[in-house]
């Protein structure tokens, strides 16, 4: 795993690059560890509070540890009327966790999201940002089985 210090350092010369750096850290760690926020503050010349303020403003970024597979269910109006609620319940049931939680083995995190721009195929989920369109509650076990 690439070291967060190295990752953040590679954005040092990019004006406003802190958000890009956070994305890059999150791609490796699935979240932004507290030490990485502190490091970014130093590299981009911000106070720790400011760096934390940036990290927590954006819902795509997380400062809490998350699982290897981050499943996000879109609940915006088009997905809502296409049955997002049933799909989320099927995930909660299959994983034994509630929205916002991570399974005990650290494999799955379940989150809600707003529209991910794939509304031609509602309802939509993403797994590690990869969209899956037209998902039904019945497909949930098969989808989870694909995540090794």
């Amino acid at each position, binding site marked *: 795993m690439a070291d967060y210090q190295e990752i953040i350092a590679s954005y040092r010369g990019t004006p*406003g690059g802190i958000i890009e750096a956070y994305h890059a850290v999150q791609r490796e760690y699935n979240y932004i560890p507290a030490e990485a926020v502190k490091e970014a503050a130093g590299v981009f010349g911000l106070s720790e509070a400011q760096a934390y303020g940036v990290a927590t403003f954006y*819902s795509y970024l997380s400062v809490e540890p998350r699982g290897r597979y981050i499943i996000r269910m879109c609940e915006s*109006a*088009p997905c809502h*009327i296409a049955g997002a609620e049933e799909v989320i319940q099927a995930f909660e049931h299959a994983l034994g966790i509630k929205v916002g939680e991570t399974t005990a083995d650290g494999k799955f995190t379940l989150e809600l999201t707003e529209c991910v*721009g794939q509304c031609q195929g*509602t309802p939509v989920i993403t797994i590690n*940002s990869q969209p899956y369109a037209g998902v039904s509650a019945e497909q949930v076990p098969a989808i989870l089985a694909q995540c090794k």
Partner: protein
Amino acid sequence: MAEELRIVLRNADRIDPLNIDDYLAAGGYRALEKARGMNPKDLINEVKASNLRGRGGAGFNAGLKWSFVPPADVTYVVCNLDEGEPGTYKDRTIVEKDPQSLLEGMAICAHAIGSRQGFIYCRGEYPYVVEHLRKAIAQARDKGVLGDFDIQVRMGAGAYVCGEETALIESIEGHRGEPRFKPPFPGVAGLWGKPTVVNNVETFANLPEIVLKGAAWFAGIGTPSYPGTKVLTLTGDVVNRVAIEVPTDTTIRQVIYEFGGGIRGGRKFKAVQIGGTSGGFIPESLLDTPIDADSMRSIGATLGTGAVLVMDETRDIVDIVTRIAKFFEHESCGKCNPCREGTFRCYEIMKKINAGRATAADIDNIMLLSKVMTRAALCGLGQAAPGPIMTTLQHFRGDYERKLLS
């Protein structure tokens, strides 16, 4: 049978989007060459005369916006690919199918305002689009077609408000994406304080054809006050859930029944919400309205991003509006009070109505609150958030009254 008219999507599914030679063979970058042979003032006047109006929602004349940029050493061209408005997937479609059209459009704008640096702000939910764009930019650079104009892609990170142009600028600068007070407008003091033009993907992608074929050609298409085409994305209870590009004098009814193939499952139409989740709800009686921004405004609705969410007779309007109220409560950035508190209270009251615990007094309150937010919120988020509530109370009041305590 109405037909699509493809300007922005003229190359879609006809060229390999990641082979710039295909784009060049289809006449790509000839418009930029022509533009570069023009005096920037004449170029701006040409775009102004075409009456191309911004496709990101506000509908401002693009050439007029460019004309506000003062002479300066450093200016920026920023493309808004935040596409956070639920139900919208047009900008993704445009970029996935023909990224060079966007790059060429940005380079045309760069010549007009004397810019050497462009940014594309792409929402964090589209990492695959970011990759795709970076490949397309690398190809354009290798071919040398962009000249001394360079383009960088920056990622958003899941904040709807960052689609607002000054919040977007804050975000590129690496800050929390909170909107700025205007004036100054970005055209005068934008990214890092420099004059900056922010336009939507679709706005830029229209430019190559406008430059090649001329302002008069474009101004003659569709509705005169909002000419050209609009890319629409159909969702919900419509047979064809697709992206289409149609002249702006196409009616809502044509969109739903001719292009959309009508309502799924042979059911009846109930409502359509156009422009994204902040758009107004439209009843059957207004379906013969053309989709151009001014006609839509005249019926209390919006064209917005061109998202078209169709709802059939079985849909619970109050439940849908409650879900929408939750969206705004979540996405309000919290900077201004009318929006922070207003979206919270709207959601609270909508939940109460939806759960069957409200009285007529709650409806009066939410109407009053909606009016205050429309007038007092700092940015378009808080101003537009009550739109779905107000338009459904206007057209579907019975749906609310059925849920009230008697």
